[in-house]
C-alpha cells in the first residue's frame, strides 16, 4: 500500500527539529497513525496511514519536496 501526499510542500519526518521521527522504516504502524508532516502556506498537515502494516520504506527524504499524488511511503 502506498501513502500518498494530498498536497504540495515540504515533507518532514519529525514533529519538530529536536524530536524523534514519527516512524522509522521497518516499524509496525496502525491505521490512522501519523507518519510525517507536509508544510505548505505556513501550515503543517499530518500525513496518516490509511491501514495498518509495516512501513517498509520512505520514498521521499526528510525535508524533500512533494507534489499532490506523490508516493511518500510504502506500507505492507
Amino acid at each position, binding site marked *: 500500500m502506498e501513502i500518498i501526499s494530498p498536497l504540495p510542500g515540504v515533507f518532514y519526518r519529525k514533529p519538530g527539529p529536536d524530536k524523534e521521527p514519527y516512524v522509522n522504516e521497518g516499524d509496525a504502524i496502525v491505521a490512522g497513525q501519523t507518519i510525517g508532516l507536509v508544510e505548505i502556506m505556513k501550515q503543517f498537515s499530518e500525513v496518516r496511514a490509511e491501514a495498518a502494516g509495516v512501513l517498509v520504506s520512505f520514498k521521499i527524504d526528510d525535508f524533500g519536496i512533494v507534489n499532490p*499524488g506523490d508516493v511518500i511511503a510504502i506500507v505492507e
Partner: protein
Amino acid sequence: MGFDIIEPGLSTTVQDQGRIGYYRYGIPQGGSMDQYSASLGNRLVGNTHKEAVLECTYIGPRITMTSDATIAVTGAPVDVFVNGDSVPQYERLSLKSGDELKFGVIKGGTKYFIAVHGGLDVPEVLGSRSTYPIGSIGGVNGRAIAAGDSISIGKKIDNGLPVLQSIPEADRPVFSPTVNVRVMLGLYNHNLSDKGLKKFLDGEWTLTPIADRMGLRYSGPGVEWKKREQPFGAGQDPSNIVDAGYAVGSIQIPGGTQPIILHRDAVSGGGYAMVATVISADMDLVARSSPGTKTRFVSVTMDEALEARREMTARDARIWS
C-alpha cells in the same frame, strides 16, 4: 437551509469578486484568486457574477447538505464525489438534503471553487463577502471555514439567462506546468542593471511552495541592481526603496534573488522595488500555478495589456449571454 462543514480542508474560504475601493486604506481587494474559474461556477448554478463561493486550496472540505441545492465545482482539476459516487466538474449538479460532498487529490493548480445557487449567505463587510483572514473580516467570522460551521445559502436568484448545463471544453481554464505571464515593466525597473533586467525577462522561474493568496515566490537566476547610493528612507539593500504603494500584481525581488508576485490579499504598500506588474488579464493564470510551475515573464505594452483585458471581458460577456 445550507450545509454543514464536516472537515474544512486545508484553507477553504468564502470569496466573491472582491472588496473594491479600500485598497488605499490598506485593505486588499481580495476575492476569488482565480476569478474566471469562480465565475464559471456562478454561471452554471444560475447566479450572477456577484455571489460568494467557496475557494478550496489543495485539500477541499467534506460537506453535508442540510437542504437541496444546485452546485458546481470549477477551477483546478480534482475528483468530486457525491455520496461516494464520482461526479463531473464544470457541470451543474443537483444535490439533495443529506448528500455528502467530498474531494479526491488535486491533479493540478491550487484552487477549486464550489458555487451554490443563491450564493453563500455570510454578512457583507465593506461591500464584500470575501474572507480576508489577516484582517479577520468577511467570510465566516473573518476566517477560513472550520469543522462544525453551518453555512447558509442565499435566496433564489433569476439571472435572466438560459440554463447552462456544462461549460464547453474550450471555455475551461488550462492548468499548465509551463506558463508565460505577461507583465508591464515598472514602476522601479530602472533600479535594475541592464543585465539584471535581461535575467528577469529571459530567465525561467520556478514557483516555490511559498505561495498563497498574498504572494507567490519564484526561484530562478536572480537579478542585478544598478549601483546607487540608497536614498534617505530606503533600506540598505539595493532591492529597497523609500516606501511606496504597490499596484495589484506587483513583482518585487527582495535581495535580488527570488521574485514575489503580490496577489489578491497582498499588502498595499511597502519598501521593495516593484520591477514589473502582472497585467490584470493574467492574474488568474498566476493563481492557477502550482509549486514547480515553470514561468517566464513576458514584457508587454500598455496597449497590449488593455487589448488582453478587452479579450477577457469579451469572453466573459459571451459566457454570460
